[in-house]
């Protein structure tokens, strides 16, 4: 029974990956919106874009990690 609950928990943790996807989409979409308004400033901000994506994505990766732990470690 406990193992099955862990599988359900892993599935629930996967929702976090979807949330991270929303976050990354927000970052990239807003960057694109800004970049199309002022294309000349876009090139200098790609580093900021990737840092923003990395921070948003980190929490999704944490959710993935929780899922992995539930699947293989619990």
């Amino acid at each position, binding site marked *: 029974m406990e193992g099955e609950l862990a599988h359900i928990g892993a599935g629930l943790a996967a929702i976090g990956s979807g949330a991270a996807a929303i976050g990354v989409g927000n970052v990239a979409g807003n960057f694109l919106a800004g970049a199309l308004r002022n294309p000349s400033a876009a090139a200098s901000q790609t*580093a900021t874009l*990737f*840092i923003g994506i*990395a921070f948003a*994505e*980190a929490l999704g*990766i944490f959710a*993935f*990690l929780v899922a992995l732990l539930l699947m293989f470690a619990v």
Partner: protein
Amino acid sequence: MATETHGAEEGGLVFHPMDQFIVEPFFGGTDVAWYTVTNATVWSFLAVLATFLLLVLGSSKRSVIPSRMQSVAELAYGFVYKMVEDICGKEGVKYFPYIMTLFMFIVCANFLGLLPASFTPTAHFAVTVVLAMAVFLTVTILGFVKNGAAFLGLFWVASAPLALRPVLAVIELISYFVRPVSHSIRLAGNVMAGHAVIKVFAGFAALTVVSPFAILGITAMYGLEVLVSFIQAYVFTILTCVYLKDALHPSH
């Protein structure tokens, strides 16, 4: 489809998607001691060798019209150099060799890991945690050596209202110590997740009905993984630069 992923004993996948990450001795045998040459050691070494060959052979015959290898080496060098200079400023250029080493190792390990039947050292937390802890310790020690006690100003946000500063200091302190965790888990998690997804699609290919879609899925995921391999190496390096900048200029 979910029942197929439970393993061979239920007549589904003949391999487990996570099997590819098992560390085992490269030259046969089963027990792993600290000196055993494992697949992890071999592929880490190959990543170092690839870095070495690319940069040494790329810069040995320096010609005005670069050969293909020289252009790639120059491209990689210029790319990382510009990143360090943009983020850390002129002072950060002194630490460029370290950051270049990190970038080249991670990018080579990631790309070599995409070869069929290979092993990805960067998909292991053991590898990325060492890299991230090295960055964390370097940056912390460097911050204190360069700025002395003024490095603690990193946690004391001078621009915030006085009443908020202690609260912010606690948050900043926590986020500082979470850095090596997120830094390492981001790289290993991304690489591991991508490889596992490819293996899951490969498992679906065993069913004749879905196999064309599985092959399409593998191809698409592989393309994505090539991108992710590069982007994660880039993100790891750029975050190293950001942390280094914090150590060099702790005031916000």
